């Protein structure tokens, strides 16, 4: 293994108003290695990347690239120096075509004019390498967040670079897409590139990384070889205290009390053409119902139908035994259903409003415009959730756009929790959220269900589903395969059901 430092950052300091984002951080990247940069939400990972690539100005510190001192002035400058980056927030232009997003800024030319033919054909080839087969001349906004994330990655890996930085590239990808990405990363690594990889999925860290650097509260914890750092130790280094909640199961223990749980919502032979095949599903009070399946299996679609976001083509929905017609989400909200969607990253964040305002907005619209929630009350609610979800911020009036990516996610989650719905639908609620808070959120979900609420829980992480859900509906290929309950629930059973479903 080569150990020549490719990039060194020494004594890096960065202060935002009210926040010490980085203080005295060192980071070393060698060529031909994949280096995981880990830490809790708000630890300073993205900030370290941004001062390196010139998005943010660094307060003090030294950066050397291939032995020469550099001071990046802008992302453009960083690119010219050979640093290629996929930022945490998807950084593409939705109004441009897929191909143009990959080539803009470095368009091939013919006779002084941009050569669109070459751009389109090269993009096609590049995306084929990542197993994506789409119309590259179509505007990017036509495609799902997962595809957009792959396009951003494709752009970054196509440029000639010495350093590749990936800030949570896998947050919207499914297992096969991740696999593809890891293959490409390993390929680039063998060509001598140095790769920085940020993620909250610890399994992915161990799957690809050679080395790990951990940050906590803007300070360096240390650099470790991945092979020599067991997972539990890694976690305790990240959160700064021992971590043992993981092994504990937190499911409802009063399961055995066998009280007949009241059915809150029943979907009777519901079908939504183009979204989900006919299914029947009961959602009961005081339980966490998991919708299991792979990405695109129909689990999110089921949630969307229940929330009135997709049309019911045939069949009926009953709430508390009463037939309802949910034509649009507002109808569902009025009935007491809340839905925290999967791609919150782009849609839900009101960047120029404060944390408090972002939390209160759904509650206010549920209460109606004329029942104004008093300032005092708003502050109480905001403070409660900031504490509960450990949102890292100097105060509740901080603009949400100034929070770290994961902390923004927490605020959006708080928004829906604050509405105190009768049925809470959580679609990937812990995406992009660090492992400590993940456990916290899982705990909270279970507690909410204790207090009468019905919860639908969707997650791609199996152990999270296993920890939280007392009943599970399994989906595959837009179809509900069946249900598991109580002790029946296990990873093997679910996998078997999904595999069996595919055979048919």
């Amino acid at each position: 293994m080569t150990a020549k430092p490719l990039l060194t950052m020494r004594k890096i300091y960065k202060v935002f108003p009210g926040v010490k984002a980085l203080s005295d951080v060192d980071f070393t990247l060698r060529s031909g290695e994949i280096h995981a940069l880990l830490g809790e939400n708000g630890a300073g990972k993205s900030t370290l990347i941004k001062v390196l690539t010139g998005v943010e100005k660094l307060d003090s510190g030294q950066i050397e690239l291939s032995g020469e001192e550099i001071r990046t002035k802008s992302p453009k400058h960083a690119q010219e120096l050979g640093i290629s980056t996929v930022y945490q927030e998807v950084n593409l232009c939705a109004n441009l075509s897929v191909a143009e997003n990959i080539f803009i800024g470095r368009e091939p030319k013919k006779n002084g004019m941009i050569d669109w033919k070459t751009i389109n054909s090269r993009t096609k080839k590049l995306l084929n390498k990542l197993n994506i087969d789409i119309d590259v001349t179509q505007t990017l906004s036509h495609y799902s967040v997962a595809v957009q994330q792959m396009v951003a990655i494709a752009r970054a890996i196509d440029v000639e670079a010495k350093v590749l930085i990936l800030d949570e590239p896998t947050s919207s990808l499914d297992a096969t897409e991740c696999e593809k990405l890891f293959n490409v990363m390993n390929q680039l690594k063998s060509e001598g590139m140095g790769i920085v990889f940020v993620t909250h999925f610890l399994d992915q860290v161990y799957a690809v990384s050679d080395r790990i650097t951990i940050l906590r509260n803007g300070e360096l914890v240390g650099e470790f070889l991945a092979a020599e750092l067991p997972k539990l130790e890694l976690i305790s280094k990240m959160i700064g205290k021992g971590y043992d909640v993981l092994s504990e199961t937190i499911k409802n223990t009063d399961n055995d009390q066998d009280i007949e749980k009241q059915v809150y919502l029943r979907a009777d032979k519901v079908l939504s053409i183009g979204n989900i095949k006919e299914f029947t599903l009961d959602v009961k009070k005081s339980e966490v119902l998991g919708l299991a399946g792979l990405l695109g299996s129909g689990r999110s679609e089921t949630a969307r139908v229940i929330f009135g976001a997709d049309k019911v083509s045939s069949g009926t929905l009953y709430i508390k035994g009463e037939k309802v017609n949910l034509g649009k989400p507002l109808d569902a909200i009025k009935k007491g259903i809340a839905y925290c969607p999967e791609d919150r990253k782009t849609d839900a964040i009101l960047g120029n409003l404060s944390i408090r305002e972002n939390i209160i907005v759904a509650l206010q619209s549920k209460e109606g415009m004329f029942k104004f929630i008093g300032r005092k009350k708003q502050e109480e609610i905001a403070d409660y959730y900031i504490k509960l979800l450990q949102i890292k911020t100097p105060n509740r009036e901080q603009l949400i756009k100034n929070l770290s990516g994961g902390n923004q996610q927490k605020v959006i989650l708080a928004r829906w929790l604050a509405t105190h719905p009768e049925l809470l639908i959580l679609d990937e609620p812990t995406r992009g959220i660090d492992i400590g808070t993940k456990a916290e959120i899982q705990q909270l979900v279970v507690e909410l269900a204790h207090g009468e609420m019905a919860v639908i829980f969707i997650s791609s992480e199996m152990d999270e589903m296993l920890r939280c859900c007392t009943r599970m509906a399994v989906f595959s290929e837009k179809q509900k395969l069946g249900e598991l309950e109580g002790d029946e629930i296990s990873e093997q059973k679910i996998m078997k059901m999904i595999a069996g479903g595919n055979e048919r």
Partner: protein
Amino acid sequence: MIISMLKKNFSIIVTILLFVVLFIAGAATYKGFLNAQVFLNLLIDNAYLIIVAIGMTFVLISGGIDISVGSVVAFVCMFSAHLLQKGWNPVAVMLLSLTVGTFGGFIMGYMIHCYEVQPFIATLAGQFLYRGICYVISTESISITNPTYSFIANYQIRLAPKMYISISVVIALLMVAVTAIVLKYTKFGRNVYAIGGNEHSAGLMGLPVAHVKISVYALSGFCAALGGIVFSFYTLSGYGLQNIGLEMDAIASAVIGGTLLTGGVGTVIGSMFGVLIQGIIQTIIIFQGNLSSWWTKVAVAALLCLFVVLQRVIETKGQSVKQQKKAAV
């Protein structure tokens, strides 16, 4: 393939179709309407507006707005008339006008980018400034008697017997052709779209945001000044009250031509047809004979509403396509 081409250019196709429909309607209703010169007159009468709308289109695509252009046109006419009266060389006057227009645009762009002034406010200041200077030069109308100007104004390029265009039309069409190519085939053009789509992302992708943003306003200033020169050929005079509200005509043309006010989408060809549609409505009203020419505005208002709604519909269609695609993946 052809269908997807049609889909992608849907709004510009609608614009051109509308123009054709209006032309046919006019031709069917009024005798003498179906005459090549009627069409060429549209170009002659609106050459200046086409040029101004080009600059506006760039600004709108980049996600900004420039409401100073009407005043710039008036200012250039006034300023040229004044200097020519004093006996300046006409070529020098034209070059100076273009320089002043471009520089003014540059200053506004600089304020907008570097001090984060709202484009509306920065260009409103420009609007007042240029209009003010017009009156400082003179509150009366000044006529242009310079022989070069008169020559250019009256020169007719014969295309066929009884069919001619003016030099202004050639300038306008050249501008359309050049800027269409710039938008589609140069880095600068593509960067304008990228910045209009998402300025933050464009910066992260390493595009020269500051440079492009400032250039766009400078370009709009240049186009407005050129439009002013062409307008001075058209009227051979300068007057401080001229072209009040011209910026809104330019914006309306761009929107009818498929440009989104939110940025990121639009073409200069579309804007040209936007201008021509307004022109043809005016022509129809003139042929009709009894209606006041203000009916043009009423018709344009209706069209604007129609197009904005249409754009919304296309957008939401796109959304639902996305949903289906997602489900299909």
